[in-house]
C-alpha cells in the first residue's frame, strides 16, 4: 500500500477531501429521501423525445418498463432504445457538485452560479447525447456501443473538467478570467 509519507496533506487539502466526502454523503442521503432519479429520468426522456421530433421530425413511442421499474423504452419503426436511471447523469452531477462545494476560499455566489450553470450544461449535454445515440442506433448501430460507453462519456468528462478549471480560474473564457 502506498503511504502519504512523501506527500503530506496541508490543512486546505485535508479540508477539501473531508468536505468533498461530506457533500457526496449529503447527496446520497438526499438521493435516498427525494426521488431525484425519477425526476431526472422523466425530464430527460421527455426532452429527448421532444428533441428527436424537433431535430429529425420523428415521432417515437415511449413505454415504461415496470415490475420492477427498469427505465423507459423509446421506440420508432427502426430502433428501440432503453433509458434507465443509470443514463440520467446523476452520478456525474453528484461528483461535479461535491468537488465544487468542497473547494475552500471561494465565494458562495460563485459556487451557486457554477452549480446551476453546471447542472444545466450537463443536463442538456446528456439530452443531446441521448438524441444523438438514438439517431446513431437508427443509422449506424455498429457504432452505438463505442459512442455510448466511450466517446460521449469522454466528452462529458471534458465538459466537467472544463467547468472545474474555469471555477479554479485555470482557463479563461472570452479573454476574461472567470473570477
Amino acid at each position, binding site marked *: 500500500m502506498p*503511504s502519504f509519507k512523501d*506527500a503530506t*496533506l496541508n490543512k486546505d*487539502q485535508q479540508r477539501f477531501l473531508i468536505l468533498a466526502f461530506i457533500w457526496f454523503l449529503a447527496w446520497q442521503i438526499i438521493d435516498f429521501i427525494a426521488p431525484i432519479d425519477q425526476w431526472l429520468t422523466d425530464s430527460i426522456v421527455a426532452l429527448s423525445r421532444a428533441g428527436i421530433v424537433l431535430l429529425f421530425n420523428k415521432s417515437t413511442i415511449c413505454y415504461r418498463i415496470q415490475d420492477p421499474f427498469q427505465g423507459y423504452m423509446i421506440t420508432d419503426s427502426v430502433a428501440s432504445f432503453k433509458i434507465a436511471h443509470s443514463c440520467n447523469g*446523476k*452520478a456525474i452531477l453528484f*461528483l461535479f457538485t461535491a468537488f465544487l462545494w468542497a473547494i475552500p476560499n471561494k465565494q458562495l455566489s460563485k459556487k451557486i452560479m457554477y452549480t446551476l450553470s453546471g447542472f444545466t450544461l450537463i443536463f442538456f449535454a446528456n439530452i443531446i447525447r441521448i438524441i444523438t445515440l438514438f439517431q446513431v442506433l437508427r443509422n449506424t448501430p455498429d457504432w452505438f456501443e463505442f459512442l455510448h*460507453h466511450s466517446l460521449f462519456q469522454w466528452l462529458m468528462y471534458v465538459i466537467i*473538467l472544463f467547468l472545474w478549471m474555469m471555477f479554479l480560474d485555470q482557463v479563461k473564457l472570452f479573454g476574461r478570467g472567470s473570477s
Partner: protein
Amino acid sequence: MDDVFRPGKIIWARFFITLLFILTVQTIQQYLSNVYYDRVCNCWSKPLDNIFVRFAIREACVYFNILCAFSQLKKMRKGEFISNIFLYISIGFDLLFILIAGIRYFNPTDYRLGQKYLEVFSYLNSGSLFVFCFALYFLTNKIQKNN
C-alpha cells in the same frame, strides 16, 4: 513513458488517452454483458450465467482501470499525493461495491439496491474518479499559490 506533466506544461494527450483507454475497457465489459444477456428470457447465457463470474469480470475491469489511472497519476508533479488519494478513494468505493453486492446477493429484487450497485460501479469503472483526481492537481496548485 513520458510524464503526464512536463515542468510547467500539461500533456493533455496523456490524460485523454488514459481516459479513452479506461472507457474502452468499460465498453468491452458492457459489450460482453450485451452479448451474453438474453433480453427475451431476461437471463444470462454461459459462461456469464454464474453471478460470481460476472462479479469477477467487473472487479477485474475495476482494478485494471485503477492500476492504469494510478500509474498515470503517479507520473504527475505532486503525483504521489494525488495518486495516493485516487487509490484510497477507489479502494473505498470498491469496498462499498463489494458490500452492496453482498447485500444484493441475498436480496436480488431490491431495485434501489440494484441502482446503487450500478452507481458505485460506474464511479469505479467509468473513469470519473480519474477525472476528479486529475482536477485535484489544479486545485493543489491553486491552494499553494494562495498560501
